[in-house]
């Protein structure tokens, strides 16, 4: 069953006040991801892979094209449904150090999605958080520390725990492990694969490292200058 299908996705930026230059970051991209599967997206820097991810998540408004997620057309979604969409689609960023609010303790960071979507009452809180940190195997003492006291690998785990609190169906991993050390990268990638098997999450895995993408994805799309040029 296809979870996400994207047709003719376009995103143009306009620069310059007088000479209107049109930059075609994403120029007609078609993507299809089946539920519980991973699509790898590879390409040099500036090929538009990050813009594709941000447009699908509607963090950036697409110029053209349609996005159908879980059977619903979400290209023009607004208001309440848009908010619910936030529970099903999530993103992991490249730099763990800046992915968490430096002033917010880890406990509150993991709890935040639940508070925003008002999904859990006060007494359930503790139990939910402990279950989440077990899944991503983080130890308990870290809960009351601040992000600057944690290592890159630990921070990325907190980000994953945070996202899992809303049990999403689809996660975009935008160069999620490219800033991590080899051993830590292996840990995180294996964690993501286990989560896929256990919870049936599908990934759009973006990276410039071909070996990692091959290990991680079922299908791979290669992008260049805003278009998909090869499909493995």
């Amino acid at each position, binding site marked *: 069953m296809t979870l996400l299908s994207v047709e003719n996705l376009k995103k143009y930026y306009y620069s310059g006040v007088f000479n209107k230059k049109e930059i075609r970051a994403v120029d007609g991209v078609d993507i299809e991801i089946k539920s519980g599967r991973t699509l790898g997206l590879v390409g040099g820097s500036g090929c538009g892979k990050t813009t594709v991810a941000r447009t699908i998540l509607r963090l950036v408004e697409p110029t053209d094209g349609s996005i159908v997620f879980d059977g619903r057309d979400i290209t023009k979604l607004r208001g309440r449904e*848009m908010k619910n*969409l936030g529970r099903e689609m*999530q*993103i992991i960023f490249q730099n763990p150090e*800046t992915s*968490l*609010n430096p002033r*917010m303790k880890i406990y509150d960071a993991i709890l*935040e999605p639940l508070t*925003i979507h008002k999904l859990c009452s006060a007494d359930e809180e503790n139990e939910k958080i402990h279950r989440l940190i077990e899944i991503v195997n983080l130890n308990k003492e870290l809960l009351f520390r601040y992000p600057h006291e944690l290592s890159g690998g630990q921070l990325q785990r907190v980000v994953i725990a945070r996202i899992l609190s809303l049990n999403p169906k689809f996660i975009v991993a935008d160069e999620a492990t490219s800033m991590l050390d080899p051993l830590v990268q292996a840990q995180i990638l294996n964690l993501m694969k286990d989560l896929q098997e256990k919870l049936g999450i599908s990934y759009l895995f973006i990276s410039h490292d071909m070996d990692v993408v091959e290990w991680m994805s079922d299908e791979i799309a290669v992008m260049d200058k805003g278009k998909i040029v090869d499909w493995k």
Partner: protein
Amino acid sequence: MKKLNDIRNILKEAGNNRMAAIGGAIVILLVLIAILASLLSPHDPFEQKLENRLLNPCFEYPFGTDNLGRCIFSRLIFGTRYSLAIGVVVVGITASVGTTLGIVSGYSRGIIDETLMRIVDIVLAFPGIILALVIAGILGPSFLNVVIAISLTHWPAYTRLVRGITLSLREKEFIEGARALRASNIYIMRRHILPNCINPIIVLATLDIAHAIIFATGLSFLGLGIQPPTPEWGSMLKAGIPYFRISPHLTFFPGTAIMVTVMAFNFLGDGLRDMIDPKINEIILVSE
């Protein structure tokens, strides 16, 4: 409970930072003086005894008397109330207004940001004292008008500082992460941007109290601030000028009082700055 140990370790850290400790101690002392003014002052600050005009400091009058025979020591103690009040009230207004505008304009960018920044440019186009002078001149001298005059000219400092911080925060991934969670803009500003601006604001506010006090006493010195007979340091200093040759102590003691108070806040501000984020270079730039 969380809040308590945050405050405790800030105090602990303040302890070992010498400047913050000294500044903090003097400030607390001044606040006590202001509160217990009526108990501490030996004489009634308004009672005029013409026979004791222009006495030099003696046992009866520790700081001597002014041209109307009033005890300068008591008037200085009551004066603490006005200076601290102006400092705190002005900073309270300008910090809250300036910060809100700074966050809104930094976060929203686009038209709102442009217009707010142009308004800030216009207000800053007048050298600080000029606008305040004119407003006080028009509205007439009084405590409230002084507060209004200084507040109207001081809020842009916070807006610029906070906008700078918001713009740099906006680039960070955790803001986009919150947007991916579909959190509302208000929530993001309140829960993510504001907490990260608090520390620089505290530092700027402390330095700004010092600034506001100098400003207020300057206005009174020009006769446009708080009018005699209220025992405000600026007006006391101005009243002492005609008798400058024969009894300089009339101007000496109010001047020292202003200096000590302002120095205490500058000390505290510098100490906090070193403790919290030593390289907030633009705080000095913005606050001066």
